[in-house]
């Protein structure tokens, strides 16, 4: 229950200041606290609300699209065009790591990842290759393939147009060898380090296939940099 702050209640003043886009000259802590709580709740409600999928909403959205069609369109980024051009022949992707390089960092296309096995790992950033990193320049993901096999992927945009990828496997049976292919062509084969990690630097735009192998099994994953 909100505590009433008395005859000098300033709640109306808070709202008026916001509506007029004026600075807030509110000195009542209770009114301000109430307002902030109200604002926070509203924003959370809006964020968590799913888009409506009823007939009326559908008609409204399509009408909106028709009215706005061709008006103030933004151009499709070149890298998306390139992705489309180069992937017509490949099978439909349902669990692939796609990284989009942008001017100010990189973006991981998460809609193609199987959310039941991928987890984004955040927190204290590892001192990647001695480079100081800003948010948006790197991502760390964990992929739990099964109970005995987990991969960590570290993706860093080190300089324009280049990505550094580090993969570490936690497996009961350690992997020995890792091979990297680009656009179907073999690039290199490395021995996996004793701690199960392999590092690839200078990865440019293209489709990569990375395969970890040991005597019993192999695990490969696809990475597209666009």
């Amino acid at each position, binding site marked *: 229950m909100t505590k009433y702050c008395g005859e000098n209640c300033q709640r109306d003043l808070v709202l008026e200041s916001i509506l007029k886009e004026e600075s807030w000259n509110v000195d009542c802590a209770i009114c301000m606290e109430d307002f902030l709580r109200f604002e926070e709740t509203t924003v959370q409600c809006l964020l968590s609300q799913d888009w409506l999928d009823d007939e009326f909403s559908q008609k409204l959205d399509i009408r909106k699209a028709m009215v706005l069609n061709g008006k103030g369109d*933004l151009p499709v980024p070149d890298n998306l065009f390139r992705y489309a051009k180069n992937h017509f022949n490949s099978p439909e992707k349902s669990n692939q790591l796609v990284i989009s390089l942008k001017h100010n960092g990189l973006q991981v296309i998460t809609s193609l990842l199987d*959310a039941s096995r991928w987890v*984004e790992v*955040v927190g204290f950033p590892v001192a990647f*290759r001695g480079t100081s990193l800003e948010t948006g320049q790197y991502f760390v993901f964990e992929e739990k393939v099964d109970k005995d096999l987990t991969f960590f992927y570290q993706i860093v945009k080190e300089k324009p147009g280049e990505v550094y990828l580090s993969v570490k496997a936690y497996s009961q049976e350690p992997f020995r060898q890792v091979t990297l292919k680009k656009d179907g062509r073999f690039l290199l084969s490395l021995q996996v380090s004793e701690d199960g*990690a392999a590092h690839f630097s200078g990865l440019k735009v293209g489709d990569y296939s990375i395969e970890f192998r040991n005597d019993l099994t192999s695990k490969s994953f696809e990475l597209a940099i666009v």
Partner: protein
Amino acid sequence: MTANMPNLSSEEIFDLVQKCGEGDLSSLELFFELYSQDIYNFPLKVFHLTEDDASDFFIYAFERLKSGKKFKSFFGKSSFKTWFFSVLRNLVIDWKRTKRELKIQSIIRYNKEGEEILGIEDEPDTREVIRNEALEITEHFQEAMRGLKLENRVIFKLTFLYYLHMEEEEINFLSQKSNKSIDEIQIELLRLREELCNREVENIRMEDKITALYLAILEIQEKLERVNTLKKGERERLEISLRKKYEQRKRLIDRKLKGHFLVKTPYKVVAKYLGITEGGVSVSLVRVIEKVQKNFRNWGDLR
């Protein structure tokens, strides 16, 4: 729709969508060429997505549309746009459901003993060191080149034209020796380089073959190590195949080590330009290479 899109009639659009539904690749490519801008802008305008999310959606929609199956639902009863925006709207809703926010967890993890471990260890960045070393070697190589007699330098550069650029002085020299104008020489050198490019393609193919053999060897080795219960005949067959692959690979690697995978201008062509014999080209090259190698050895000792 894209601004410079050709004005297709309703019938043409209907035909295009029908062909997309049949999975016709060129029609699908044309469709995406024409309507990519709509796919990208639809969620921006109708659902107020950010540009990052619109990019994510674009790739999702492309992956779901490229097979052509979704195009089969267009029968021409409603206008193309109404149908297309409905498809996009359904895709946005699917995308939103699919794109559950990835769970987030701390990077700090603990092993069974309760010790703190990091997901991935640090890796020192050695690229700058390697790059500087490469620049230093290149500079020294150029210096060694400048120390050669003009004729020898031209023979060397002409032989390895695919990798090296000829300076003005060297082109003038070739022009005098061959009684051709500088323009003619330049055009001929460009053509020659184009031919040499084709040889490089063949070399890359051979390099790929070495790799393919290496991967095949690994695979056979794994099979042999893994399965102790192989039938006698099968084991022998695998062992023979392994031996053959080793031999093939060795032959190719030997050729590579002998420099056969280097793109060289035929001695006949070099000799013709300079008015000397093919043997003369060969001897000059041996001398130049020896001199450059000696130069590099001395430089290496000094470093």
